[in-house]
């Protein structure tokens, strides 16, 4: 470890003097942007899919929607996220002739991908809510969808919050593959520092530390949210 000081000095030089930190900050921003917005899209899609999947199936429309959702979930769970990113960026985008920045493509793909996972989490959550809640809502004359949105889903979300926190943590870490389509995240920032200093040990170590801290902060936030949602369980 004799030359660790030298490595540290080299890293510091690039990090401070050659604007390495601005790259890290943009990288951090992009990582969080993709993970958080991706999860937000995922929750919307996931809730929709889960609601369709738990619908009573004796009419034709829910059955068709159910098939479509099963296909969607199979598609996005059955392929690696890197493959989805590459296909979206290099196949779908040119085919549609659409013009999107790589960050936006990443947000969309991560959203669609986590939608598939969140749908199963949400379905479990919805099924964990007492069916009497749905009956009571229907009995006072609210429609299926209104009861779902106002009564069942809020209770389901409370039950699945720890798992959703897991999903966000997984997303934060998975974003490290977005450089495949040219988006700059934390990994890109640190490998830039590494390449410019011909020295990878310290940058990647710092990168690992930042990921750990990030995940710890998210875990703390999720816990705080859980506490505030548990309000209705407290006996006072």
């Amino acid at each position, binding site marked *: 470890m004799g030359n660790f000081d030298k490595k540290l000095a080299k890293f510091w030089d690039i990090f401070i003097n050659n604007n390495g930190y601005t790259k890290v900050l943009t990288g951090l921003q992009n990582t969080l942007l993709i993970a958080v917005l991706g999860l937000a899209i995922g929750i919307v899609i996931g809730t929709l899919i889960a609601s369709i999947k738990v619908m009573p199936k004796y009419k034709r429309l829910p059955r068709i929607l159910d098939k479509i959702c099963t296909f969607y979930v199979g598609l996005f769970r059955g392929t690696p996220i890197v493959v989805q990113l590459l296909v979206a960026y290099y196949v779908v985008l040119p085919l549609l002739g659409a013009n999107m920045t790589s960050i936006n493509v990443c947000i969309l793909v991560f959203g669609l991908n986590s939608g598939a996972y969140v749908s199963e989490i949400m379905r479990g959550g919805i099924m964990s809510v*007492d069916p*009497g*809640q749905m*009956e*009571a*809502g*229907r*009995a*006072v*004359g*609210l*429609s299926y969808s*209104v009861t779902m949105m*106002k*009564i069942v889903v*809020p*209770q389901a979300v*409370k039950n699945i919050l720890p798992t959703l926190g897991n999903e966000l943590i997984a997303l934060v870490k998975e974003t490290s593959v977005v450089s495949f389509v040219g988006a700059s995240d934390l990994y890109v920032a640190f490998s830039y520092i590494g390449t410019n200093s011909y020295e990878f040990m310290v940058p990647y170590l710092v990168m690992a530390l930042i990921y750990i801290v990030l995940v710890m902060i998210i875990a703390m936030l999720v816990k705080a949210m859980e506490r505030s949602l548990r*309000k*209705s*369980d*407290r*006996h*006072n």
Partner: protein
Amino acid sequence: MIDIIDLRKSFGNVEVLKGITTTIKEGEKVAVIGPSGSGKSTFLRCLNCMEDPTGGSIIFEGVDLADMKVDINIHRRHMGMVFQQFNLFNNKTVLGNIMLAPLHIRLHDLRMKKLKNVFIRVGNVFRRNKKSLYEINTTRQEIKDEVRENALRLLKRIGLEEKADVYPSTLSGGQKQRIAIIRALAMNPKVMLFDEPTSALDPEMVGEVLDLIKQLADEGMTMVIVTHEMGFAREVATRVLFMDEGQILEEGPPDTFFSNPQNPRAKEFLSKVL
């Protein structure tokens, strides 16, 4: 008020209701009794289509509820239902539980009226005979205040106004059930359906719930009660339906039914429970 004609319900191959025909008149209090598995709960749940009937019809205010094309949500608003397990909304406060449905429905109506008015206005630009707009004489805030006031009045009636802002998990079973009853009343129903309202309660809390139901009965509310409380059925009901194996075996005024049942199955049942 409710005409039930040859009502049938099957779950898979099991026929639970085998053709039930009866009429529930306005102001009547009908107690439905019978052994477990006789189909009495299913019968009650078919009345507001919580279970869709597989045959027959339920004519409520001139509309056949068993017809799948009917918008059941509109008619359910006139039929309050009280469950054995209370089913208060766990994510809402007591006041929120009572206000949710009336508030949502009235605000939704207001929104729809406003939306339709926009279309009519646009259409009127091209129409020779101008169409008149929907009358809107309340604001959102007025509706909110009104619904809230009504909910508080109902809470006061059962003496639980200090519980307005707590969550259901903090209440006793009896309190929950009484709140479930006034939650149904907040919709101003024309008939109340009770599905074994006291079966999940501690014995000491049965009284307070039955008292409230009796109050409603005295005020002239039409009600159908599935119950195992024979004393209560005898006291409150104006008519008793005895059901077994998906059929009504005997019906009549409680005095004659309880003192002198005709059907052998009813005799046997009463000898066990009385």
